[in-house]
């Protein structure tokens, strides 16, 4: 019984719980055991099994009364970048050693108010800076997928790699993550799950450990497109505590999954066809275009001329914002402190010991591009290029309703690969970063396997606040791809 519970989607769990086919407590027990069984993946930093049981008991009482909340009893994992009251919140960094937030992030609070059950906090690249989930102070996350006949461990992508791995390995029914340059969509692609980055302002950033405030987006990672719609509905909404949170209504995303995309115009941006792109990714993209055309949509080739400049602009803007946001870690008010003779000594020693190599690199780059004499040449220049990138999209959306492109330029790579060359690692985000710069919604959906048997995602990008359309298109891809492959590591098979 419990093994089959782990295979159910959020939509199926919701229905089963309401029918009382199983209880929330039974489900929480099964998932607590799954979290334990999945320990070899290092997907969780802090499991919260007791909290899960307490929340499940409360959900069971509501379910018994017939007063079920939208997500009552659904067990989810939380990227350890969201502050959770009294539960350690590390951001994958030694810097936040011992930190227990005295408050709850808006997005997690909304999820608990919707009845969701917290399984624990998931591992990530330190301060969400990375594309492999290997830079955490708590060790690397492993992808539950392996190449058939090859036992080398693979990365789950990043930075929300723990969340993606947990959902893929059935160690969470769904999870939440954050996406600053692809950190939800790229791990979703690498782990064969759905990852949705909503519009900037759709989900509150309040209580999320800040990386780059103008680029950070909370969003869900799920096993199905419908589950992403269900999760987003619970996470979204205006929050007066985040001044960039949008005061716009939250539509019924699930109702948007009509299965009908007839007449929808789908833009195919020619600049995403890059030299050296693996043939299998090009083929998958073509197949995706065919699937949408077969369903009655109209593919239209479009141009986004600024595409190649998105990544270098991002790697100025994101480190600049990070260097400012991470100035707060000074050893005074929370987290790590290394004693020093003077205040300056204490700051410098604390920050040297608390931040890992990639975080230090980005703080230093950010400090440099914001420093006197370089601000205009780097930071302002990148912000002007950002305007041009946003204009490219605005022009495209005069002609089309959504865009289709690959999520990532490769399948999951081996742990250790790309770690010597920061730019090789940065190139993972080449297809995902433009949506962050423009603040537009984008979703990655598993669409096929690479030649060596690893999942590959396709990405659908839409107009601001039009998550409904991209989810509708994603569901068509999901149906056509009929992706039933499972990773070699599944929690229920480990006991």
């Amino acid at each position, binding site marked *: 019984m419990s093994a089959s519970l782990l295979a159910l989607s959020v939509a199926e769990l919701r229905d089963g719980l309401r029918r009382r086919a199983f209880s929330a407590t039974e489900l929480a027990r099964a998932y607590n055991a799954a979290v334990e069984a999945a320990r070899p993946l290092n997907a969780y930093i802090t499991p919260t099994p007791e909290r899960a049981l307490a929340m499940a008991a409360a959900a069971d009482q509501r379910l018994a009364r017939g007063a079920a909340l939208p997500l009552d009893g659904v067990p989810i994992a939380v990227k350890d970048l969201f502050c959770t009251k009294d539960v350690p919140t590390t951001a994958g960094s030694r810097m936040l050693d011992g930190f*227990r937030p005295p408050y709850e992030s808006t997005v997690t609070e909304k999820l608990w108010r919707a009845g969701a059950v917290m399984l624990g906090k998931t591992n990530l690249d330190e301060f969400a800076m990375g594309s492999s989930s290997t830079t955490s102070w708590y060790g690397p996350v492993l992808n539950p997928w392996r190449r058939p006949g090859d036992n080398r461990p693979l990365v789950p992508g990043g930075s929300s790699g723990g969340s993606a791995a947990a959902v893929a390995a059935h160690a969470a029914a769904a999870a939440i993550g954050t996406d600053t340059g692809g950190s939800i969509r790229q791990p979703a692609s690498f782990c064969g799950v759905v990852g949705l980055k909503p519009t900037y302002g759709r989900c509150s950033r309040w209580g999320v450990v800040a990386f780059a405030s103008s680029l950070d987006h909370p969003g869900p990672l799920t096993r199905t497109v419908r589950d992403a719609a269900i999760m987003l509905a619970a996470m979204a909404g205006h929050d007066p505590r985040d001044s960039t949170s949008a005061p716009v209504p939250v539509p019924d995303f699930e109702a948007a999954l009509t299965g009908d995309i007839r007449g929808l115009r789908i833009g195919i941006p020619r600049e995403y066809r890059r030299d050296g792109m693996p043939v299998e990714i090009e083929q998958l993209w073509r197949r995706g275009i065919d699937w949408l055309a077969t369903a009655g949509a109209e593919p239209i080739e479009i141009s986004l001329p600024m595409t190649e400049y998105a990544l270098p602009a991002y790697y100025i803007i994101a480190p600049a914002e990070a260097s400012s946001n991470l100035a707060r870690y000074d050893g005074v008010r929370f987290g790590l402190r290394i004693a020093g003779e003077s205040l300056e*000594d204490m700051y410098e020693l604390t920050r040297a010991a608390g931040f890992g190599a990639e975080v230090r690199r980005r703080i230093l780059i950010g400090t440099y591009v914001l420093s006197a004499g370089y601000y205009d040449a780097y930071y302002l220049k990148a912000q002007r290029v950002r305007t041009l990138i946003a204009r490219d999209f605005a022009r495209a959306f005069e002609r089309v309703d959504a865009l289709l492109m690959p999520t990532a330029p490769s399948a999951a790579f081996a742990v250790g690969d790309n770690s010597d060359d920061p730019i090789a690692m940065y190139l993972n985000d080449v297809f995902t970063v433009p949506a962050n710069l423009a603040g537009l919604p984008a979703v990655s959906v598993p669409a096929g396997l690479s030649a060596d048997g690893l999942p590959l995602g396709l990405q659908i990008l839409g107009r601001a606040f039009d998550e409904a359309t991209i989810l509708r298109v994603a569901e068509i891809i999901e149906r056509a791809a009929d992706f039933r492959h499972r990773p070699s590591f599944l929690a229920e098979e480990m006991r």
Partner: protein
Amino acid sequence: MALDKATVAHIATLARIRLSEAELARLAEELSHILDWVAQLEEVDTEGVPPMASAAALSLPMRADEVTDGNCREAILGNAPHTARGFFVVPKVIE
């Protein structure tokens, strides 16, 4: 754009991160490499293009100037590495 060790040392001081000699040399090389790569933005004509600071197409919202929280000193001090009598404690800053 090649950064020398002295420049990296200066940035590290601004960022309050203590670096060893060996780290300075390695970072000078890594950061130079990254700056060379982002320099491709110089190819883009941005004459007359306004900078974009955020995707939020909103003016900053106004709210009533009212106290919305407070009386949580214990909670705030609870995470501090060193406190005394309701204050954060740091090394002496005056001689």
